[in-house]
């Protein structure tokens, strides 16, 4: 019975009644209190719902604007929490499942997207920095995660086993290394390297000059029938000896530098230098290779 009354009201409201049926219905409204009460209720319900829906549409529009504002704010400074704008991040069970429930989820999505972007940017930046600052993939010692200082034994600290030459600078550096003053040792090594490089440049210039001079001298000798041949030969040998001596010292300095770098835990630089020493084929190449192998 109740449903029949509601069906009648619904047909009237939806305009599904004929003109005659409408007249009968309106007559019934005057006399049937139950029909009248239900009809009034249905009309009021329609008005209330229409009013609420109109308001909720406005709210949805404003919430969308707020989301856009938060999204742009998030892009410039991702310092806010997942719900920005003081919204709490608690989990709530939706009582009704209306459109409003999507707002909190939407906030979270925005925040997660932003945070993922930031995290990805950091990861990419870190990888780029790592690639730029560290040796390439064929380098040793990185994958193992072993600290260079951990993988170098006492044997490697017999700094200059094969060094028989006399050089004050080298001796000073050895003393510093023995005292484990690696920073100071490194500084001394770098000063010595610069000094030797300058000397080498100067020697190259001298050699060039001497060679040209020799040519001139030879020409003069040819003209003067070989009077100055012995003097030119002695100068050349002295330069070669000096050159040979420098090579020895440079080799020692590189080895000592690699040791100092290892002890200072400057992995990347140490690896680079050890590889250089290994490829040079000099007397420290086997030791360098041995250390690099242990890191690999």
């Amino acid at each position, binding site marked *: 019975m109740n449903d029949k009354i509601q069906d009648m009201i619904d047909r009237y409201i939806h305009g599904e009644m004929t003109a005659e049926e409408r007249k009968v219905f309106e007559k019934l409204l005057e006399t049937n209190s139950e029909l009248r009460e239900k009809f009034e209720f249905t009309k009021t319900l329609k008005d209330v719902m229409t009013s609420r829906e109109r308001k909720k549409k406005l709210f949805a529009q404003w919430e969308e604007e707020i989301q856009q504002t938060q999204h742009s704010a998030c892009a410039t400074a991702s310092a806010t929490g997942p719900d920005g704008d003081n919204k709490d991040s608690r989990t709530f069970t939706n009582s009704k499942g209306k459109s*409003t429930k999507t707002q909190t989820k939407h906030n979270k999505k925005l925040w997660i997207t932003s945070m993922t972007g930031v995290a990805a940017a950091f990861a990419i930046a870190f990888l780029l920095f790592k690639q730029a600052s560290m040796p390439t993939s064929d380098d040793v010692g990185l994958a193992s995660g072993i600290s260079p200082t951990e993988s170098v034994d006492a044997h490697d600290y017999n700094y200059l086993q094969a060094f028989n030459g006399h050089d004050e600078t080298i001796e000073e550096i050895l003393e510093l290394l023995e005292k484990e003053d690696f920073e100071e040792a490194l500084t001394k090594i770098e000063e010595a390297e610069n000094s030797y490089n300058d000397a080498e440049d100067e020697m190259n210039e001298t050699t060039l000059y001497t060679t040209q001079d020799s040519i001139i001298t030879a020409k003069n000798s040819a003209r003067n029938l070989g009077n100055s041949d012995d003097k030119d030969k002695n100068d050349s040998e002295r330069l070669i000896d000096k050159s040979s001596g420098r090579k020895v010292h440079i080799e020692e300095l590189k080895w000592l530098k690699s040791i100092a770098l290892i002890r200072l835990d400057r992995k990347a630089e140490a690896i680079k230098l050890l590889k250089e020493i290994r490829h040079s084929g000099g007397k420290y190449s086997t030791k360098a290779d041995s250390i690099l192998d242990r890191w690999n």
Partner: protein
Amino acid sequence: MTLEPKTYSDTIYVEGVKKGDTPIIKSLYLQCRKYFYAHFNSILFGVEINVDDVFQDSFIRTMENIERGKLSVRDGIIYGKENEPMKCTLLTYFMSIAKNLHRENVRDVKKTPIEEQSSQEPATDDSWINDSIDTMWEAISICLSKMSKGCHDIIERFYVEGKKLDQILEELDGYTSKDALKTRKNKCMNQLRTCACGLYNGLNDL
């Protein structure tokens, strides 16, 4: 739009809502929203809820109270319950409504008898707020905010959007036939009527 909108005095807000002035209503909405999300933890507790729903339903109720004359402005003063000058700010008024709505929701969830619930609750200082249900309109509005999503979807499509049952059957999942949908719709209407009549008649029970 910024999150720090232009603010107005409470009297301007009340007059703006009464006139349907959208920029003023929007400003009030943003003010209430900001305040609500900063403070709802202190008033909403007991059960898990959808906080967005509580906020919007509370704001709708605040608007309806103004629209229906429960709050009015005369000579620059806001009058409320029994035509007495309002003793609090509009934000406090709004928050009290949120608190009351939440209390009703909690009561529904717990299914606690009204008498028992009332004796358990501490006395509140917001009894001066004229939030009593004086009309069927108000009762229906409150009951709509508590209605299930399934019922809401059917009732809204049928009575607000004017759709026929065949159309609604195509749009909604879970109904095998037009008759099943019609039965559900009538059940929803009966529940709503029971709820609204209960509130309107002071029974306050669904």
